[in-house]
């Protein structure tokens, strides 16, 4: 009786797990298959295409209307620079906030909290006008500047992580004559690899996903990022060109998804260390 019950439980569980797996994978699989299907329409008789073609991928890079290759390189450039800048800014500032007790520290923490509560693009109009006056509209510089400038505000998770590294480590190093920067570079950084990965990855992928701000700033087609381009593609297509959109999506999703899966361990650590500290 007990054994029977156990088997029933396991069967039910496996069925559920399989079902959820199908739901989790299906959209991704559908896009990949669509990108390999001949023709351009969204509608197709069969889930599994009768023949496969790579023509849509080629089209992405040869099309005159969609400068996908240029967009891709643009995004890559912006994402890499933003990732480097914001990782440096976030870790340095959160190191200071976590390790030192100085006047204004509580204020700084409170300001970070309060600013995080404003809807992010409440500042949209103002930033637009500032960029207009700095003559930075329609440049990638503007995007990098704004993404990195706000980076420190999202640093609570990083601070929480630094808080958990025992302070005795850096005190010992200080006694041995290391400067603060040396302590940071030689002790804190090696210990915070999971956190650095988390910050770098989230700021990197953030750029690929942001289209609100990119759409506001980037005016000419040659300067667009993939996010703006894909958004435009979806909005202008009416059941045509869907396969091309699918191909573009696959090319964006593959590297980022792979990064996520490979760095999963770090991500989980990053998420949960933020969790226990709130």
């Amino acid at each position, binding site marked *: 009786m007990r054994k029977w019950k156990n088997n029933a439980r*396991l069967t039910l*569980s*496996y069925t559920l797990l399989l079902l959820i*797996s199908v739901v*989790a*994978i299906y*959209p*991704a699989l*559908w896009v990949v298959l669509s990108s390999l299907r001949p023709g351009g*329409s*969204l*509608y197709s008789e069969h889930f599994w295409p009768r023949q496969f073609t790579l023509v849509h991928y080629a089209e992405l890079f040869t099309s005159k209307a969609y400068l996908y290759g240029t967009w891709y390189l643009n995004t890559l450039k912006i994402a890499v620079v933003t990732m480097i800048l914001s990782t440096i*800014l976030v870790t*340095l*500032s959160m190191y*200071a*906030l976590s390790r*030192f007790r100085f006047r204004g*520290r509580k204020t*700084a923490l409170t300001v970070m*909290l309060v*600013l*995080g509560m*404003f*809807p*992010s693009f*409440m*500042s949209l*109009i*103002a*930033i637009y006008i*500032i960029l207009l*006056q700095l003559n930075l509209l329609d440049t990638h510089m503007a995007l990098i500047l*704004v993404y990195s400038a706000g*980076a*420190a505000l999202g640093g609570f998770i990083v601070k*929480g992580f630094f*808080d*958990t590294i*025992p*302070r005795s480590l850096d005190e010992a190093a200080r006694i041995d004559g290391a*400067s*603060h920067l040396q302590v940071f570079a030689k002790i804190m950084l090696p210990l915070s690899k999971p956190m650095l990965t988390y910050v770098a990855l989230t700021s990197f*992928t953030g750029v690929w*996903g942001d*289209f*609100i701000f990119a759409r*506001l700033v980037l005016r000419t087609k040659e300067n667009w990022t993939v996010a703006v381009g*894909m958004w435009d593609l*979806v909005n202008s297509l009416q*059941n045509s060109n869907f396969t091309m959109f699918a191909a573009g*999506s696959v090319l964006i999703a593959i590297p*980022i998804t792979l990064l996520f899966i490979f760095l999963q361990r770090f991500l*989980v650590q990053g*998420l*949960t260390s933020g*969790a*226990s*500290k*709130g």
Partner: protein
Amino acid sequence: MKQHRTIAVLLSIVLQGLGQIYNRQWLKGILFMMIEVAGFIYIAPRLGGAIWGLVTLGEKTQKFVKVGKVAQMVKGDHSIFLILDGLIILFLVFVLLGVYVWNIGDAYQSGKLRDEKKPVRTFRQSYEHATTFYFPYFMLALPALGVLFFTIMPIVFTVMLAFTNYSAPDHIPPAKLVDWVGFKTFADLVKMKSWSHTFVGVLIWTIIWAVLATVTTYFGGILVALLIEQKGIRFKKLWRTIFIIPYAIPQLISLLVMKNLFNGQFGPINQYLGYFGLGGLPWLTDPFWAKVTVITVNMWIGIPVSMVLILGILTSIPRDLYEAADVDGASTLQKFRIITMPFILFSTMPILIMQFAGNINNFNVIFLLTGGNPAKGDYQFAGATDLLITWLYKLTLDNNKYNVASAVGIIIFLIVAIFSIWNFRRSKSFKEEDMIQ
């Protein structure tokens, strides 16, 4: 003897850096002076205009003036630029005042050293002293400047807009001027029938959405995590990796893909329903079904995150609790209710509340999926699935109702702030962060 410090402070008050020079800190003094001179040259001619602009918001509009035979356009005052320019100048003054206060304090410290017959620091020593004792300030200076000019100032600017009448069609510069109107925008939002109807409707849906979106993803995550962690389930790592996929795919892509999946005419979901002999559903075009769709899609995106979180917490529950429960003869359900659930709730409460606050501002899911549509005839510029935040976006970018948009933004801020403050009050980690060491 307090001579040196008094003289140094007085000199530094008169001219920034003079006190340092009096203390024979030449390089430092010259640097301070250069900052003041540069600041003065930039700000002095602009300060009056900045204050005038902020107070009046401009006095003349642009107009055509006859010069000989051709009409020429004479530029008027642009109220919005005036506000922003004024703010930038005020912020610069603020930064320079900070340097000024620092300069006086520094002169006092060095003067004190001299009074005590100790040598003052050389420039090199000052540098080393600063990087040792003021290290955190150095680390924070650059990010703080970035935040000041690209976050705080824009927010102050936008908050100010809520108290003006900057909106289409009557008050858009440069053709027209903008004026301060006090709390009128807020009053309109609550009292004027057309606005208040939209505002209340959108607000209620925003709250329903935030509750449902948070609860479904949270409990969905718990269920999936428990399912994987059950005794006897094999390939745990494989399941976990599969379920993490929706989280790994960039949101922008997965949402745009979903939009096509749920397409009422050509989308595969309706196609499959057709195979079962069922009629297709208006997933994105019917007010009710559009709401169902956004919640469902949000589950697909959000459950993996909760799952990852809760899997981490499940492993941290002490085994002996369960063993003790086994000895007492507790059933699986009882163990879940008395041990697992309280443990999960306790450690994820702060995140749960922050997720709720985050969902109030969940722009992407709504905007990319339905764009806030289907449109509602009796709403002002909003649709059935519009949240406050997407409504704000539409008000700003599509309809130029900047003052209403800013007011809505302030209201969103207030709602989120209440939850966040309550959260931090009750979570001990903020207060007792030093206890972890």
